[in-house]
């Protein structure tokens, strides 16, 4: 499936030999109106890996995540510059269809947000939009998606009941099932466990490990231990004083990517002093 409405003419920016690269951000920068929210983001998302974004509030990590499936398009005044590629194609290129992008790159949000519909219809929603009408086909997708989200055994006998009747953790897994029902390649998760209790959180974390073999995952989390537990690579963002005097006057700060590397190294021997200070809790 192509993400472009027409055949893309842009050639791959990644070396052909590195087939494991899914997304690349090069000097990515996001402005909201005249304010620079985050700048100078350079990182690579590799397939079948979990990449975690960590950092204090206001450092731009969720903003960057939202760029990855063009959710920032829906925010008025948001402007993305720099280059963000998906398999070598500029995601913000003129021929790229944002809706197609979101089918390939799904998203799960902080607060579980099932539709006020049955469990079945929640999961079948995306496939139906994509034109799948046959009941048998939809049944198969619903089952495989709910299995993929480790929810099938808990809900298989009540698929026609409301998704809102599930517990918070189950609702979040329903949202994951809904996201994977359209067979995305990448699943973005914006603090998916922050509204969940520890058991539900552990379930989602286990699920992420299982999902890794089929999907590429990018997660924003405030829980550093969660990033350490689940991710292969970690990106640490922080915010620093804006360069322009106008922004300083308004006490505006800009997010920057400080360090990006293998999670094991980031949490045992980070290179940048700011990463060390943040993850050891010496500033906040």
């Amino acid at each position, binding site marked *: 499936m192509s993400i472009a409405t027409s055949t893309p003419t842009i050639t791959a920016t990644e070396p052909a030999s590195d087939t494991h690269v899914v997304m690349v951000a090069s000097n990515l920068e996001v402005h909201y109106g005249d304010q620079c929210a985050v700048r100078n983001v350079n990182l690579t998302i590799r397939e079948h890996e979990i990449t975690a974004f960590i950092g204090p509030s206001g450092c731009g990590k969720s903003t960057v995540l939202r760029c990855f499936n063009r959710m920032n398009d829906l925010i008025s005044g948001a402007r993305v510059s720099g280059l963000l590629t998906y398999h070598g194609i500029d995601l913000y290129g003129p021929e790229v269809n944002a809706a197609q992008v979101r089918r390939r790159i799904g998203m799960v949000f902080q607060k579980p947000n099932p539709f006020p519909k049955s469990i079945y219809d929640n999961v079948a929603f995306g496939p139906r939009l994509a034109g799948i009408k046959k009941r048998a086909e939809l049944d198969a997708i619903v089952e495989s998606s709910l299995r993929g989200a480790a929810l099938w055994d808990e809900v298989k006998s009540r698929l026609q009941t409301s998704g809102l009747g599930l517990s918070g953790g189950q609702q979040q897994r329903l949202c994951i099932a809904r996201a994977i029902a359209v067979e995305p390649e990448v699943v973005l998760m914006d603090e998916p466990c922050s509204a969940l209790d520890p058991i539900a959180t552990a379930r989602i974390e286990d699920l992420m490990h299982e999902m890794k073999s089929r999907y590429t995952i990018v997660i924003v989390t405030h829980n550093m231990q969660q990033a350490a537990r689940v991710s292969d690579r970690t990106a640490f963002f922080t915010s620093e004083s804006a360069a322009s005097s106008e922004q300083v006057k308004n006490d505006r700060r800009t997010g920057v990517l400080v360090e990006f590397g293998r999670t094991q190294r980031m*949490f045992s021997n*980070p290179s940048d002093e700011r990463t*060390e200070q943040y*993850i*050891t*809790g*010496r500033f906040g």
Partner: protein
Amino acid sequence: MDELRKSFHHDIEDVRTELVHMAAFVTEAIPRATAVLLNGDLEGADQIINGDDEIDARALELEDQCIQILALQAPVAGDLRQIVAALKMVAEVERSADLVCNICKAARLIYGHSLDPTLRGIITRMGEQAQQLYIAAIESFVENDAAKAAAIDDMDNYLDALQKQFVQAIFESHAAGRIDLQVAVQLAVVARFYERIGDHAVNIGERVRFVVTGWLPEHRGAARFRSRADDSTEMPRPPIPGNSD
């Protein structure tokens, strides 16, 4: 910005301070053990040997403190390296204290036998050098000084050389009939105790380097091993003569 997790960082400081106190205890015990050996001070030997129980108890307590920090605070990065290194270093210090005791036990075994000036001189120098190594280890730890920690390995070469020199002197003293065989064997063992104390100081220095840089000198050997293992998978090894398999 404000420092967070102050109490946790205070706990890490407590671990560091206690480790320094324990290592200082060993540093001070080394010359005392040397004096016990040279003067045949049985009372002094008893004091040092009995004092080892306190070091054992403190080592257990410190280990427990480290485990609690790991379990409850989930330290990362520099904090994690501090705690993991402390767990390793406390074992080095505790073992060094045992070796100091062993010197005193050897002093009891050779009580009443006189040692010639050459042997006495080398024992004094071995004691001083072992103490110097320990002082350097503590200083490098307190100052987070990786360069000083790396120098301990070279300082240890001098202690190793003294040990060899001492063994030679033992042979000569025994051959000249100045010490009997049992004393000669005990003295050789004592030299080994000093040399081992030096090795433990070197190990502490290596852990200091790990705390500061995240790197251990053993990584070099490990890289050589991996490289050899890679080579052996590429080229089959020649058959061992006489092995029919």
